[in-house]
Each structure stands twice: as structure tokens, then as C-alpha cells.
């Protein structure tokens, strides 16, 4: 069992051989030692030591009769509100913004005893796949500091990969938990849309966004997800346990591989690791079949219509009047235009303009209307596919982590998410975990495999993930 897992820490806390006070101190020490180079954190909370002292006391008094996450040091992506803390979305727009309430997931995690030790870096407003779009400088991949950790939850991934915390929370709009998990050798989970409340997350694409864990084991990911999940009166899109038909657990599953989708643009090393993973599944008694998903393959194009449309609407609220960056100007329009010009970075502006374009009169039907239609048909395609297969299998990303500054062209960056974005469009759950490594320039770079389940099939992914991955760590 890996050292830095919740399961291990919990057992040691209960046995009295290690304490939350020591664990939180170790987290802070690790950040002090390594984060100068990695830059996973935007903010570190020294006051976590107070909560840690209290948690230590509780373990002494009550042992295992304590909440399941008591004393676990965790980190939050900096687009998740925590009352009284700076929540910036890694944007100059919100550089000095202080959250006035807790996100539902923060409330649930802290009620379960988790101790937040810091806020992690990200692509500005969660837009990007490398964390290079942060207004406060990029994060580096702990496996190779010349490379990106992925994004947009790259700070959360690096925080776990460098050993600071056993779990960090990310958000996933088109792959922003799973892709960094793949690049950093971690487990990352994107739940069924609506499984986890979005109340208190800084909105990007409201029909796509979900929060989820980045961890060292599937067991931990499940525990943290279960703590955060469930219906919330503050988010009307949260789902009840019976919203979708029950997805049964099985001893042996049928996996579907969209072969045609993998034919182009996937790194040779990633393909080798993927084939080896398929061989492992077959050796374990599972069935692997070829499937065809022509609409799923076009997901990236539909995504870059739907997502910017939602971005342009959601980010209209940053106007320099109520909160966030405000630039002085002669008239009201000038305040809007200058505040937004100064507050937003390159990629954010690009997506707002693109969204404005696809929603504007004369183009709405050709782009947004059509993209939503593709999305509907893609859901039907998946529903049909899940009648014959239990889980869809792809690599999480087409390559291992790339070099900082390597992807200057926006479209080249977007293509890193080709396997992950259709999952958000369809609303289905997906789990990524390490399937091996690829050697580049003498360094072993981790690569992840993605298990996609039917709507409401979150438990199935955790169950198979524990059998396949947790038994190897």
C-alpha cells in the first residue's frame, strides 16, 4: 500500500503511531521544501495546524469513532470557495477576492474532518490543459520539472504527486481532473454530471463542470467522492441515487475499445501501454471488444462550441462593478471594457469571444444549435453502446506530459483533451488511473487509462478500478 493514502493515514492515526498534527506539519514542510520549484500552491494555510491539533486530540479520545477524513491534509483547486480565503481562479480578475461562503463540497469535506492546507494553482478560470494559463505562473510536473503537470487542475495534481497531500480536489469541465492525473501518475475521477454539487465552484461551463478527487488510490478517490456527493438544495442539477437506473456490479466486464478513434495522433508509447493494459484485462477474465463511436469522435468540435458559449455567459458577471478587478474610466462602458481587458488573460478572452460568436444572431443555429444536437445524438450513441458493453476504454490523453511552452497553438493544446471532452458532453462518469510509463529523454513519464461508465455508473468504475489498480500499488 502506498504511504501517502488516506487509508494508510487513517489506520496509523487510529493506532496512535502517527498524528494529524504530524501529518499536517509534514504537508506544510513538503510545500516549503519543494513548492519553490513546483509551484503547485497559490496559498498555504498555516492555521491548518490548529485544526490538526484538535484532530489529534479527537483520535486520542475516540479512536476509530471519528469522522472518516479526520485529520487528512487536503488541498483545494483555487476555483472552489472557502469562506475567508482568497479564491482567485488563478486570474488577475479575482486576485484580491475573498470568498464569503463555503462551497457545499468544502462544507462536506470539513464536516468529515478533512483539513485544508492550501489552495492549488490552475489554468485561469479552469481554461487550459497545462496550468500555463495561470496569471500567477505555471506549475511544473514533479516527475520532470521541464514538463507541464497538465491542466486545468495541474496544481492539485502536482500537490499530490510531489507528496504534499494524499488528496487534492479538482474540477473537470473537459478533462481537467483526468488529464493532469494521467500526466502526474495519479487517480482522477470525473463523476456523473449532477452527482456532486457545483454550489460554490467558480462556474466555467455549467452543463459540463463537476468536482472530483485526485488521489494515489481508487479506494481514496471513492471515499472522497462519496463524502462530497449527494443531492444539494443549493444546486438544482444535483441528482438523487435513483435518478438513473441501477448500474450493476459484475465479476467480469465487457470493455469496449473505440479502435478507429485511436488510429490517429496517439503516441506510440501510450498505445503500447494501452495494449498491455488490454492484455491484463483479458488475462483477468474480462472481455475486450472493438466498438465504433463516430459521434463521440467528433466530441472535441462540439465541445469547442458548447463550452465557450457557456463561458461567455458565465464570465459576463465580471464587470468591475460588484467584485473583482475594476479599472477606472470616463464612463460605465469604459469601466466594463477596461476592467475585463486588464483582468482576463489571453485564453479567457479567446473563449469569451468565440462563445459570443457562436451565440450571436445568424450563427446560433449553425454552431450552438448544431453542437447541442451532436451532443444529444452522442448521448444516444453511448446509451446504445452501453447496451452491449459495460465500460468504454481509452487512453486518458494521447501523449505523456509535454514540455512547458511546447504547445503555443491553441488547437494543438485542445487536442490533448480529445478522449476526455466527449465524456463531459455526455455527462457520464470516467475514472483515470496509471497504466504504465513512457520513457522520454531518460525520464519515466506516467500515462493513464480512462474507464468510462454509463450514467450513474460511478460505483462500477470504483469497483473495477480497485480490483485492477489498487492491487498493484
Amino acid at each position, binding site marked *: 500500500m502506498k504511504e501517502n493514502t488516506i487509508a494508510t493515514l487513517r489506520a496509523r492515526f487510529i493506532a496512535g503511531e502517527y498524528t494529524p498534527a504530524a501529518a499536517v506539519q509534514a504537508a506544510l514542510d513538503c510545500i516549503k521544501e519543494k513548492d519553490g520549484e513546483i509551484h503547485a500552491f497559490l496559498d498555504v494555510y498555516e492555521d491548518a495546524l490548529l485544526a490538526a491539533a484538535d484532530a489529534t486530540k479527537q483520535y486520542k479520545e475516540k479512536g476509530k469513532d471519528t469522522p472518516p477524513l479526520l485529520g487528512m491534509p487536503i488541498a483545494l483547486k483555487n476555483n472552489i470557495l472557502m469562506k475567508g480565503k482568497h479564491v482567485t481562479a488563478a486570474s488577475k480578475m479575482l486576485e484580491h*477576492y*475573498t470568498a*464569503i*461562503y463555503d462551497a457545499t463540497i468544502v462544507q462536506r469535506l470539513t464536516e468529515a474532518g478533512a483539513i485544508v492546507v492550501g489552495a492549488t494553482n490552475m489554468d485561469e478560470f479552469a481554461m487550459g490543459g497545462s496550468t500555463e494559463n495561470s496569471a500567477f505562473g505555471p506549475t511544473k510536473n514533479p516527475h520532470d520539472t521541464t514538463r507541464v503537470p497538465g491542466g486545468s487542475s495541474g496544481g492539485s495534481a502536482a500537490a499530490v504527486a510531489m507528496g504534499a497531500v494524499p488528496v487534492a480536489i479538482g474540477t473537470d469541465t473537459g478533462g481537467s481532473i483526468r488529464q493532469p492525473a494521467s500526466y502526474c501518475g495519479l487517480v482522477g475521477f470525473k463523476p456523473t454530471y449532477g452527482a456532486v454539487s457545483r454550489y460554490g465552484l467558480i462556474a466555467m461551463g455549467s*452543463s459540463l463542470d463537476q468536482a472530483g478527487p485526485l488521489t494515489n488510490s481508487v479506494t481514496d478517490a471513492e471515499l472522497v467522492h462519496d463524502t462530497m456527493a449527494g443531492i444539494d*438544495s443549493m444546486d*438544482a*442539477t444535483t441528482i438523487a441515487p435513483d435518478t438513473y437506473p441501477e448500474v450493476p456490479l459484475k465479476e467480469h466486464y465487457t470493455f469496449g475499445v473505440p479502435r478507429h478513434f485511436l488510429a490517429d495522433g496517439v503516441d506510440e508509447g501510450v498505445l503500447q501501454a494501452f495494449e498491455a493494459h488490454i492484455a491484463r484485462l483479458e488475462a483477468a477474465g474480462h472481455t475486450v471488444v472493438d466498438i465504433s463511436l463516430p*459521434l463521440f469522435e*467528433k466530441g472535441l*468540435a*462540439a465541445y*469547442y*462550441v458548447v463550452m465557450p458559449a457557456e463561458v*461567455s455567459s458565465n464570465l*459576463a458577471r465580471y*464587470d*468591475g*462593478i*460588484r*467584485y*473583482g478587478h*475594476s479599472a477606472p*474610466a*470616463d*464612463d*460605465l*462602458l*469604459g*469601466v*466594463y*471594457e*477596461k476592467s*475585463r*481587458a486588464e483582468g*482576463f488573460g*489571453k485564453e479567457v*478572452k*479567446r473563449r*469569451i*469571444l*468565440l462563445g*459570443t*460568436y*457562436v451565440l*450571436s444572431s445568424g450563427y446560433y443555429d*449553425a*454552431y450552438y*444549435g*448544431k*453542437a*447541442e*444536437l*451532436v*451532443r*444529444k*445524438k452522442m448521448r444516444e450513441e453511448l446509451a446504445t453502446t452501453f447496451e452491449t458493453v459495460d465500460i468504454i476504454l481509452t487512453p486518458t490523453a494521447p501523449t505523456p506530459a509535454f514540455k512547458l511552452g511546447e504547445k503555443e*497553438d*491553441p*488547437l494543438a493544446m485542445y487536442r490533448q483533451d480529445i478522449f476526455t471532452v466527449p465524456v463531459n458532453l455526455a455527462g457520464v462518469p470516467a475514472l483515470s488511473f496509471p497504466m504504465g510509463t513512457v520513457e522520454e529523454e531518460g525520464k519515466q513519464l506516467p500515462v493513464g487509462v480512462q474507464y468510462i461508465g454509463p450514467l450513474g455508473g460511478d460505483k462500477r468504475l470504483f469497483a473495477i478500478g480497485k480490483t485492477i489498480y489498487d492491487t498493484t500499488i
Partner: protein
Amino acid sequence: MLHHMKREEITHLATLSRIRLSEEELTNLEKELSSIVSYVSVVSDIAADDAMATPKVGARYNIFRKDEITNKSDYYTSDILREAPCIEGRYLAVKKILETGE
């Protein structure tokens, strides 16, 4: 399908989006948005055979709560006002938008 975005189009989008853009930004966006829009326009081909169908977007059922006030009066007010760049008393201050006649 190649789609070239004209500079005037981008200037117009910037006005709609309330973002002031520099000349350099306009030049870059002309190239970048053209290539992105060309890429995404495959969506119109994919769904061409289904042009009359209306996509179902968003929630499939309504969620209601009781029509009653759940916040305590003034509970968040001072915290919210503290975030505002410019206030007068309990109000957000903005630039004048109406001319007053002499």
C-alpha cells in the same frame, strides 16, 4: 470548411463581450479564431441529416423549493459590500449613464 474571421467581426465581438482589445490582440485573434471556427464547423456537417430536430438542453424536470426567505437579513451584506470596488453607503457606485438637463 475554412472560415476567415475578418478584423471588423472580431472588433464587433469584442464590443459585444465588453472587452477592449489592443491592435496586437486583434491581429492574433484574427488568426486563432479563424482556425478554431474552421475546426468546429464540422458540427454542422455531422448533424446535417437531422436539421429539423430540436436538441433538448438542460434540466429534464423542474426542482422547486418553498417560496420563503432562507437568509437572515443583512447576514452577507457587509461581506459582499467589502468586495465591491466602489460603494456609497449600502449602494454600489457606478458611472453616470444618463445626462441630466440643465
